[in-house]
Every structure is written in structure tokens, then in C-alpha cells.
């Protein structure tokens, strides 16, 4: 439908410079420039390297997205950008770019939450999100269970990792096994040749008195590393495929068990899985099986939409426009620790939205005290 909001989204929270364009729930362009190769030899993302790469890639990536979408910048209804959470210096490049672009085009700016964007992207794959949506977000930066009654206004954290993110654990184990960086894809590949039952690694936070929805992968990581070292000390060959499969099984067992439990406990009949680790084939398979057993419908976007990208930011921006949420102010901050409970960062002077984004309507200033989300 041509009257659905046409929004460009910019994502720079980590090492992907993403620019996406959507019309409502329709994906028109999803351009990503990654600096992952530059980080590989360090075993993780180096913030300054990522920030430099964002600056280099920003304008060419915007240009490619517009070209591939076949739309004119002047037709956009808004520009959305990840305001946080993420790496501060990296976020700042995207936020600066989005402000400049929106301002130059005379369009409203929407600073949105990276985690809510990971959930909202599924609208591009499976249509409107059910309300509420239960979401399991798993990547190198986050491992969270979120309940979202309204993705533009009400996202509630049920649980999250208390130490390492799931993707971080994959990277660290890959490093111990000398498989390189990033670890997710290579362990997934190795695991296909291995036996997931070969070694019984610990399942973190699954005891009767543990937090029901929180995760912990640090103990698992240590246990796997010790097991490998013991083999090496004994002069035995490390069965890489079996270790990969057994480690991966321990991670996805806990993730899917807790996610399905959260759906049941909260009476939610849909589960959305997003984030880079959602591309893991065993996670997808086990989630599908357990959801089916529990009568829960599983929604997992295609892998390219699960990793960080601009389309997810555009998807949430389009939802903000569609629901007439207020735009952000020109002094929008990049907030490296933006709480997940804030799906977007509205202009504190216009917290209710008026359709016209940057009008100079000061009628609502008196409501600041009760509606200011920033104090």
C-alpha cells in the first residue's frame, strides 16, 4: 500500500553500518557494510576500528539503499536511527548521520531502541506482530527475554544474561578451539558432524532456586575450556565436532527451555527469536520442536534480518510513524545504555506526538514533569 510510511533506518550500534528502507511491513532495501574482517584478528569488535569504518561507509551505504529501494529521498516519511544501546562512539556516527539527513530533507527523526528494532524486524518477514509478543534476543551483545505488549511504547524485560551474552560464549569457545572469529557460524558448522550428547556440559541457572528467565553462560564457558585443556594435557586429541555440538546444545537447550516457559507463564502463544545467534541452525530446530510441543507459534526472521541491520531500525521507525508516536529532538543523544523499556526517544518537549514532527507547539511543555522519560 502506497500510503504506508516510507522510512529509512540507520544502524551503527556495533560493527555493521546498516541502512534499510521499508514501506510499512515491506522491505525495500537492506544494505550492510561490515567491518568484521578488520576485527577478526583481535577476536572481538574494537570500538575505534568500528567507528572509523562507520564514518567511511555511511554515505555510500545510504546511497546504495536508496538506489536499491528505487525511491527518492524526498518521498521518505521519516528517518529512524538506533539511539542505543551499543558502542557509544559507533552509535554517535549513526545518530549524527540520521540527524543531518532528516534535517536536510525536512523529515522527522526517530531515535529508536536497538533491541526493540530486533523484534520489530519480524514484521518484514511475517507481517504485523501479535500483541503481546514474546521475544528471545540472542547475539554477541545481548541475551534477553522480552515481553512486548506494544513494540512502540511498552517493552518489558523478563530476564537477561547475568554475565556473558550467548554469542560471546560462542566466540570464546571458538577461540579456545582455534576456530577463529566470529565463533557462531563455525561452531554451528562443526557441530553438525558431532554428537550433542557426547559431553554433558552444565546448564546455567536452571536449578529450582535460580531466576526463571535469566541466563548465565560464563560457567558453561569455563567448563568447556577446562574440559578441552584436560584433554590437551593428557595428550589426547580434542574431538572438536563433539565439543562444538555438546557446547552448542547446552546453550540452545537453556535458551529454548526458558523462552517456552516464559510464553506459557505469560499466556503468550507466539515466540519471536532475533539477534545474530538466531541464525544458529540448532537453535532454530530445537525452538521449532519445543514450540510445537507447547502449542506456541514460532517466528524467526531470515538470518540476514536477525543480525544487526538498518531494515530493523526502519521497521520500528515505520511503526512509530504509523502509530503517530512523537519524533525525536535535534539534540537527540546516542545513549550506549538506553534501557530496553524505552523503545524510542521522543522529544521531551512533545512527548505525545502531533503527526507534524518538529512543529514549534509549546502547548505541552507543562506536561514535561509527568511524562519526561529522561530523568
Amino acid at each position, binding site marked *: 500500500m502506497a500510503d504506508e510510511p516510507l522510512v529509512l533506518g540507520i544502524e551503527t550500534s*556495533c*560493527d*555493521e553500518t546498516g541502512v534499510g528502507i521499508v514501506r510499512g511491513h515491506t522491505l525495500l532495501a537492506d544494505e550492510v557494510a*561490515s567491518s568484521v574482517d578488520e*576485527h577478526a584478528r*583481535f*577476536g*572481538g*569488535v*574494537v570500538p*575505534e*576500528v568500528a*567507528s*572509523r569504518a*562507520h*564514518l567511511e561507509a*555511511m*554515505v555510500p551505504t*545510504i*546511497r546504495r539503499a536508496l538506489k536499491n529501494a528505487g525511491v527518492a529521498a524526498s518521498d521518505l516519511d521519516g528517518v529512524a536511527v538506533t539511539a542505543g544501546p*551499543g558502542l*557509544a*562512539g559507533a552509535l*554517535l*556516527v549513526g*545518530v*549524527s*548521520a540520521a*540527524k*543531518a*539527513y532528516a*534535517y*536536510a*530533507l525536512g523529515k522527522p527523526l526517530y531515535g529508536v531502541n536497538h533491541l526493540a528494532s530486533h523484534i520489530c524486524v519480524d514484521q518484514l518477514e511475517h507481517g504485523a506482530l501479535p500483541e503481546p509478543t514474546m521475544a528471545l534476543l540472542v*547475539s*554477541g*551483545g545481548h541475551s534477553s527475554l522480552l515481553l512486548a505488549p506494544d513494540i512502540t511504547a511498552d517493552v518489558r524485560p523478563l530476564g537477561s544474561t547475568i554475565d*556473558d551474552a550467548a*554469542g*560471546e560464549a*560462542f*566466540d570464546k569457545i571458538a577461540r579456545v578451539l582455534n576456530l577463529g*572469529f*566470529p565463533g*557462531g*557460524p563455525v561452531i*554451528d558448522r562443526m557441530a553438525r558432524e558431532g554428537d550433542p550428547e557426547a559431553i554433558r556440559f552444565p546448564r546455567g541457572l536452571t536449578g529450582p532456586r535460580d531466576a526463571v528467565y535469566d541466563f548465565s553462560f560464563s560457567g558453561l564457558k569455563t567448563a568447556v575450556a577446562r574440559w578441552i585443556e584436560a584433554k590437551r594435557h593428557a595428550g589426547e586429541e580434542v574431538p572438536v565436532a563433539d565439543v562444538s555440538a555438546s557446547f552448542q546444545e547446552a546453550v540452545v537447550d537453556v535458551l529454548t527451555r526458558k523462552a517456552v516457559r516464559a510464553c506459557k507463564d505469560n499466556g503468550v502463544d507466539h515466540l519471536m527469536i532475533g*539477534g*545474530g*545467534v538466531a*541464525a*544458529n541452525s540448532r537453535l532454530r530446530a530445537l525452538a521449532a520442536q519445543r514450540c510445537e510441543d507447547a502449542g506456541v507459534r514460532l517466528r524467526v526472521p531470515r*538470518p*540476514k534480518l536477525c*543480525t*544487526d541491520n538498518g531494515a530493523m531500525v526502519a521497521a520500528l521507525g515505520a511503526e512509530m510513524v504509523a502509530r503517530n508516536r512523537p519524533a525525536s529532538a*535535534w*539534540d*537527540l*543523544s546516542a545513549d550506549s545504555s538506553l534501557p530496553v523499556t524505552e523503545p524510542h526517544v521522543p522529544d521531551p518537549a512533545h512527548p505525545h506526538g502531533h503527526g507534524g514532527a518538529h512543529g514549534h507547539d509549546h502547548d505541552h511543555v507543562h506536561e514535561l514533569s509527568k511524562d519526561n522519560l529522561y530523568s
Partner: protein
Amino acid sequence: MLLLALDTATPAVTVALHDGSGVLAESNQVDARRHGELLLPAVHRVLGEAGVGLDAVTGFVVGVGPGPYTGLRVGLTTAGVFSEATGVPVHGLCTLDGIAYAVGLAGLEGPFTVATDARRKEVYWARYADARTRLTDPAVDRPADITDETAGLPAVGAGAQLYPDTFGRVPEGMPVHQSAAAMAALAAEKLAAGEDLLPDRPLYLRRPDAQVPAHYKVVTPR
């Protein structure tokens, strides 16, 4: 000619609009931690004061550093995207050259040194024959390591004020902070004379710190 100049390579967030013969409006704020928040509102204010829109601008001028990276990128990103959105060219200027030009306007004749604070006990600096003529490439050094090269010269800028043992005499009445008005005037002069300006690419002068934080974020499969 209508130039919009901006620079965020030093603690200053500075924006100015110049019509080729003079400055129409400017905004100067000093807050090393809020470049990202302050720049766009400053642009909006400057254009508003001059009563023009961004679409009237015929060229963007941006300080390319050297400067601490995070702030530096705010200005470069903003100018680059403005240029992309409006189809109007963006020109780079060495940030130290802007300060040198401002110093010339304030009455200091050469030779002199310009030094800004590079943090980590270092300065970004260059030597000038006069306000328009830089003699050395911009560099980053510990003040103690460049005393031979700057000895006997007056010095200006926040870096000179920070390290009086190295830079000695800082003349009275000289601007300390970067001024987009001076940069715009310099760019206008250079453009009118048919001189090339720099591409809008950052002068970092240092390699990135290759340190992965304890809880780093990673990309997983694509």
C-alpha cells in the same frame, strides 16, 4: 556563495554561515562531551538567524582535524550527509589552519605554532610562517619531544596554554578555541582564489587502540 562551516575536532562546537564577503551568523559553544547533542541545534540556530534554509547553502566546510576522534566524526558525518542530501559540495580544512587564520585576524603575524589538546599528554600541532602558510604537516607529539622545533616561537591554542614549559609565550588576546567563522572566511578566500581544499576525510594521526573491551559486542553469522 553561501558557505556553512562547522568544526567539532576540538572541545568547541562551532558553526558559521558566510556569504563570501562576511559572516552572516555563527554559534560557538565549548563542551567536549556533547558534540553530538549540540551540533544540529547550532546549525538550525545559525540558519534561522540568517533567515535561510539549508537548501540555500552552496558549499559545506568542515574541520577534518586533527582532533580526538569521537567528536571529530560528529562534524565529518554531519557535513558529509548534508552534502549527500543537498547535492552541494563539501570541503575539508585542517582544523589547525582554521585556528591559525583566526590568530591572523586577531593581529598576530608569523611565524608561530598552533597546538591543540590531543589528550593523553600529547598535542596536535603545526608550525606556521603566517596565518595562511603552514610549514609542517599536522602532527601529534608529546610536548617535551618538540621543544626544539617550537623554541622561540609564539604559540596559540589550548595545547599551548596547557604546556607552557614547551610552548613558552602565548600572546595576549589570541583566540583559544576553534572558530567556524574563521574557517568559513579562510575557505571563502581559498575558493575565490581557485585553491583546492581538502577532501572531507579525518586526520586521526593515530592508529586505533586495538583493545577489545571485556564485554564486547560481536557479529554473528550472516
